[in-house]
């Protein structure tokens, strides 16, 4: 079965510390993975997708097929990074996504 697991409900760090939000998936095939973010009082929006291999707002995520992981990383957290982060997996041969349960990132000054 296709599944996305985000093991941490809450991650708290101080400004300037490195951040890693974990995401593991189960999938039979070539996965398409995404990170979505929801800032306070804003709508959910795409942060990045693995196929683009891009860095957005200093965040990167590398697909590790051996470990079936797609962890989101940033070397130096900023207070404005505080938000809810969801990892998502594209369902096989559809336009539908499976979302993880989300991780709330709190960055303290």
């Amino acid at each position: 079965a296709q599944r996305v697991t985000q093991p941490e409900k809450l991650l708290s760090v101080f400004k300037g510390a490195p951040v890693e939000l974990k995401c593991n998936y189960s999938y039979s095939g070539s996965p398409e993975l995404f990170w979505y973010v929801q800032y306070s009082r804003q709508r959910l929006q795409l942060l990045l997708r693995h196929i683009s291999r891009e860095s957005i707002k200093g965040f990167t995520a590398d697909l590790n097929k051996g470990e079936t992981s797609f962890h989101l990383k940033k070397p130096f957290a900023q207070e404005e990074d505080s938000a809810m982060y969801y990892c998502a997996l594209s369902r096989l041969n559809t336009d539908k996504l499976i979302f993880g349960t989300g991780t709330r990132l709190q960055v303290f000054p």
Partner: protein
Amino acid sequence: DVKVTQSSRYLVKRTGEKVFLECVQDMDHENMFWYRQDPGLGLRLIYFSYDVKMKEKGDIPEGYSVSREKKERFSLILESASTNQTSMYLCASSSPGTSGNNEQFFGPGTRLTVL
């Protein structure tokens, strides 16, 4: 600025009432989605529509129905609201995806409370 809009930000209804949640997108997207967002459970797909009058059940369709009479509008209907349907409801839209390109655009959400 492209947008997905939802008819209400907050809604309070009584048990047994029929509830309509409306979603409109101006991006000419074929796909539209309804999710509910609950703490600790993430986003769960209720229904999906890939074209006018076409729909598919998602992971938690029980107690819900949908209507898509026009391409830009996707309605979620609670036939007889119950307290366990108290939640945040998110609408989203997307174009049919080429590989890795099926970004979903979300509305602001409707927080529904059923008393």
